[in-house]
């Protein structure tokens, strides 16, 4: 690179001299447009050359001490919003870690991939591993994208750290190199069922066995997996699941779902939605007078744009999710610090709790790699990960860290939140809650 540059620079230098000479000879004559153009082009080339030289040097200087990890998120396409939000959390963890001296003395670098669709997610995982040579990947936010990408990594024996996708079967496929730090769909179901039995049933003055629940879910991996695990657990705990309504997340009309829900007459609707369908479902529920409380399952119901779209009608909508920002901070050390860093870096408030979960998760990944001395060798990672033992209530999300034999973190509990005055406030369980939940139909 550098030797090339020298030769080229010399050549351009000669050209430039010649041009200058010519201009000089001609004395006071104004430059023609052609000459100006040629002059400009050369100047641009030289500037570009200088920039590339500087970049080349700087990359060279740190080359021996970097730790490259693939960061695979949907950053374009329909899931770009929360995909990017998730990446922001991991990015803050990375910057913070590098400022504090990196992982095992190495500067952490993210090699970015775009899991735009499940199909590109596969090719991006292959590109990161084959062409970019990364030895580990973190991501992914979307369950369907994680499923394919982690399969690529799993077959090649490359550690894959999931920080946001919740479909149950991600960690039950038998890949020894798969690790998930965030809660699964099953954890979400536990939280929802507990909430319905411990809070909603007494509030309605009914026995849990008289409570009727409907489930409305988008029909990709995320929605289907959450809905299935909820229905199973709810039935086991004696709740009546009166209807399950799958729908496509990109629908422009969900009135048919609302009609089916009206017919089923549930006491509460458990919704599993992405962003636009969560908005549409609630808007049409109001239009078509479906007067039933909704409890979302992460995804769209936790978004600020959900509250914006519904205005005062968002009041009282419940949601089970990763840890949000209106939470008892005694339970979540480091959260305030994270918020400060977020605002400083991105000049805005977080759009959802996804960044926080990814911040916490990326930190766990860095802690594991700190123990392996920066090695991403699957055996070393396995040993370090299984040795992790962090108590609940000692991270920014309030989660602890302890992996089971499938690589799933078991010290995680999602919390029930509720939209109150345009803010998503934690209301359940009591330890993390900052407000009492209210019932609005």
């Amino acid at each position, binding site marked *: 690179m550098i030797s090339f540059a020298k030769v080229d620079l010399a050549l351009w230098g000669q050209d430039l001299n010649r041009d200058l000479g010519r201009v000089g000879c001609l004395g006071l004559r104004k430059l023609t447009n052609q000459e100006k153009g040629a002059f400009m082009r050369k100047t641009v080339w030289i500037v570009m050359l200088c920039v590339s030289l500087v970049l080349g040097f700087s990359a060279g200087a740190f080359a021996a001490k970097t730790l490259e990890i693939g960061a695979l998120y949907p950053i374009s396409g329909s899931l770009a919003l929360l995909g990017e939000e998730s990446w922001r959390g991991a990015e803050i963890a990375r910057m913070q870690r590098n400022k504090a001296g990196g992982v095992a003395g190495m500067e952490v670098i993210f090699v970015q991939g775009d899991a735009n669709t499940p199909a590109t997610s596969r090719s991006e995982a292959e590109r990161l591993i084959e062409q970019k040579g990364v030895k580990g990947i973190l991501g992914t936010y979307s369950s369907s994208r994680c499923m394919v990408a982690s399969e690529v990594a799993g077959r090649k024996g490359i550690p894959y750290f999931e920080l946001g996708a919740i479909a149950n079967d991600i960690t039950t496929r038998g890949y020894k190199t798969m690790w998930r730090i965030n809660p699964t769909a099953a954890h979400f179901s536990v939280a929802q069922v507990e909430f319905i039995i411990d809070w909603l049933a007494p509030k309605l003055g009914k026995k849990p066995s008289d409570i009727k629940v409907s489930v409305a879910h988008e029909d990709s991996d995320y929605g289907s997996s959450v809905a299935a695990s909820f229905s199973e657990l709810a039935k086991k705990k004696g709740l009546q699941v009166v209807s399950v309504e799958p729908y*496509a997340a990109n629908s*422009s009309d969900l009135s*048919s779902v609302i*009609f089916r829900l009206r017919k089923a007459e549930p006491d509460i609707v458990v919704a599993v939605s992405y962003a636009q369908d969560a*908005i549409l479902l609630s808007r049409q529920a109001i239009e078509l007078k479906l007067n039933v409380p909704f409890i979302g399952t992460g995804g769209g119901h936790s978004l600020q*744009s959900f509250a914006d779209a*519904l205005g005062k009608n968002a009041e009282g909508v419940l949601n089970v999710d990763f840890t949000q920002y209106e939470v008892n901070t005694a339970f979540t050390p480091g959260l305030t610090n994270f918020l400060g860093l977020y605002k400083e870096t991105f000049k805005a408030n977080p759009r959802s709790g996804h960044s926080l979960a990814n911040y916490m998760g990326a930190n766990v990944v860095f802690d594991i790699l700190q123990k392996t001395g920066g090695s991403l060798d699957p055996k070393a990672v396995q040993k370090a990960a299984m040795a992790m033992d962090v108590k609940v209530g000692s991270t920014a999300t309030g989660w602890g860290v302890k992996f089971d034999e499938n690589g799933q973190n078991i010290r995680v509990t999602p919390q029930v939140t509720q939209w109150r005055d345009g803010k998503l406030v934690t209301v359940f369980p009591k330890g993390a809650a900052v407000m009492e939940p209210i019932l609005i139909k």
Partner: protein
Amino acid sequence: MDLYIQVLVSGLLLGGVYALISIGLNLIFGVVRIINFAHGEMVMLSMYLTFWLHHLYGMDPYLAAIVVLPVMFLFGVAFQRVVVQPILTTSATMKIFTTVGVSLLLQNLVLIFWKGDFRTVQTSYSMSAFEVFEIIVSIPRFVAFVAALLSIIILYAFLKFTFAGKALRAIVEDNAVARLMGVNVERHYLLAFGLGCAFSGLGGVLLMPFNAVYPTVGVTYTLLAFVVVVLGGLGSMSGTFLAGLFIGVVEAFGGTFVSPALKEAIYFGIFILVLLVRPQGLFGMGRGTEEVGLK
């Protein structure tokens, strides 16, 4: 029984919106004979335009039509002149690649500049509805339905009674003969594209009070508009309107009584059936139009 009527009403209202989005495509499709895969993105751009006018200048979404329609007309004219004109004589695959490319380009430009956020407008009528004999009718959807009906009548009158309209119809029927009769075909292409985009603009404006806009919102509409146009028949405005209503009703009934997850499968199934049995569409203009631009 009530439920059936309620579902029918919801289906018809939905169909009105579908028809509105599809009219523009039919015009472009029929006249210029190009499969414009960026059609949904035109709707998306108009939705964003409506959103920004509301967000930045407090303009009522419906009032924003005054700005959005002319802007989209000019956008369409420019699109035809810059992108479509140079590739008109190339193969169908080339046209598909080009318009798909434009559609991806627009989606990603919007993603870069306006981010992936789901944007909505808040108006007093956003979630309002009125009731007739206990049947609930959503006001913004009703407005969209009426506007679709009116704009189709206006477009029909334009095509029927004005010289430019007649020329457009002549081009739809037989491009070469129209040219021989002295119609300036290229200029009418510009007009058709401009009008087509203005109609998607109107669609975008009317969708905004009840739908969120985000970079990939157009993808669903592109496919849907194709189904409606092909079903209704190329070049037939009333066909598009009826086909739109039909798809809306099928979607509502299929969604409510079969499964919401299957509603798209149902109307795409119908689409394939129509292509097999009556390729020129239910109200198509007969022989020749079944080629749907694949020349």
